[in-house]
């Protein structure tokens, strides 16, 4: 298939699809087109949608491709949106518990509570209710506790391509050490870590 035609079709499919469209789905739908060609065409679409005169971008999220307006346009766009998505309000303890699950998954309630140092039952229920986490079987140990992991909804709500897009915990460690006054080691290898997360440090008290 001609590249331009392929790109046009891909754009149309991503536009109408309710869920992020995965490469697997596309490969199954376009019989004669190789995965490499699909990937290349998708990349071109993603890049083209970043142009400064474009208001709708194609992004990778939750393992697929999806269209979005840009966050920086939200003031102008909001008044035209008919169906507002219900805001996701999470308390700081809920966010911290979610972070523990995101990084340690699959993980059990006792393990979460060990890390957090507090009872986490009600927070777990909140996260289940909001479908940000799901159960993931049971751990084969004494008591067979339920395992929890983050859901697709989590990736969607937090705009993540997949879990590997999360910064590593080591990166946070550098940051944490630095902020706890343990300056000696932090300065040696802190270069990579401090960049992305610095911006949001100190927003602690914002809530």
């Amino acid at each position, binding site marked *: 298939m001609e590249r331009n035609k392929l790109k046009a079709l891909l754009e149309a499919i991503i536009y109408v699809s309710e869920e992020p469209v995965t490469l697997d789905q596309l490969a199954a739908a376009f019989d004669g087109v190789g995965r490499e060609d699909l990937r290349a065409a998708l990349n071109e679409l993603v890049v083209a949608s970043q142009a400064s005169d474009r208001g709708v971008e194609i992004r990778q999220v939750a393992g697929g491709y999806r269209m*979005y*307006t840009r966050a920086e346009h939200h003031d102008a766009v909001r008044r035209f949106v008919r169906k507002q998505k219900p805001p996701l309000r999470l308390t700081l303890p809920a966010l911290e518990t979610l972070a523990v699950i995101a990084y340690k998954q699959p993980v059990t309630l006792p393990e979460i509570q060990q890390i957090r140092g507090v009872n986490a039952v009600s927070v777990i229920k909140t996260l289940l209710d909001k479908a940000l986490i799901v159960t993931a079987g049971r751990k084969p140990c004494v008591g067979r506790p339920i395992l929890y992991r983050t859901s697709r909804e989590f990736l969607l709500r937090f705009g993540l391509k997949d879990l590997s897009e999360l910064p590593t915990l080591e990166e946070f460690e550098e940051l944490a050490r630095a902020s706890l006054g343990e300056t000696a080691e932090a300065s040696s290898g802190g270069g990579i870590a401090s960049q992305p997360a610095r911006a*949001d440090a100190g927003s602690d008290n914002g809530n």
Partner: protein
Amino acid sequence: MEPPYSVQLETYEGPLDLLLDLIRKQEINILDIPIARVTQQYLDYLHKMEELDMDIAADFILMAATLIYIKAKMLLPPDPNAPAAEPLDPRSDLVQRLLEHERFKKAAEMLQQKQILEAASWSRPNPEGFEHEEGELVVTLWDVVKAFQAALNRPQLPPPLDIPKEELTVGQMMAEMQEILRASAGPVELERVIERYSTRRALIVAFLALLELIRLEAILAVQQEPFGPILLRKHKLFDVVFARADKLEAVDTQYQ
């Protein structure tokens, strides 16, 4: 000594938050915590909570015990019989937990930033009606669990009658409504009652019966919030109306 009620106490979600705050505010090196001092400050905080009659969660007490244990251990000379390979600092477990806790706090902040950005962008799926059925929900296992609990908690209605509903008159239907309300402890959702009838005729008869009962002030239909479920409950004349069989029959003659 400050008067007890003027004390302003920050609230902490858990003992690790409290400890981290103590350490951070005093710019203490986390790898070399002055355990005696921090333990004292920690206990002071718990005492203040007590003075304010605040409940102290078990988690806080447990941590106090841990701190005291570490403090005691640091005063003791190393156990000569211990395997030589591990001259472990008694604080190291706690330090690891604090560091990990701090990492996750940072991770939570990062997630929050991502979520704020995500909430500011819109996707408009299915703009041209390549649609699925309406009114259905995407469900998870958790929804299954909750649904079962909801079914168990609902007041049990008598099982649907076996006699064909087509046969019921308005008066008999009113008697059935009475049974339903009598069998349940509290109000009954209108939807639960309606669901019992599948034919158009039975539904119409059921509605007529409900309207009659509302008119006779035997039952009351209330809606506690806009779009909320409509609830049926016994009204002031509930017992009076149903005590008189002739009243129900009189209704039937009206509808002949």
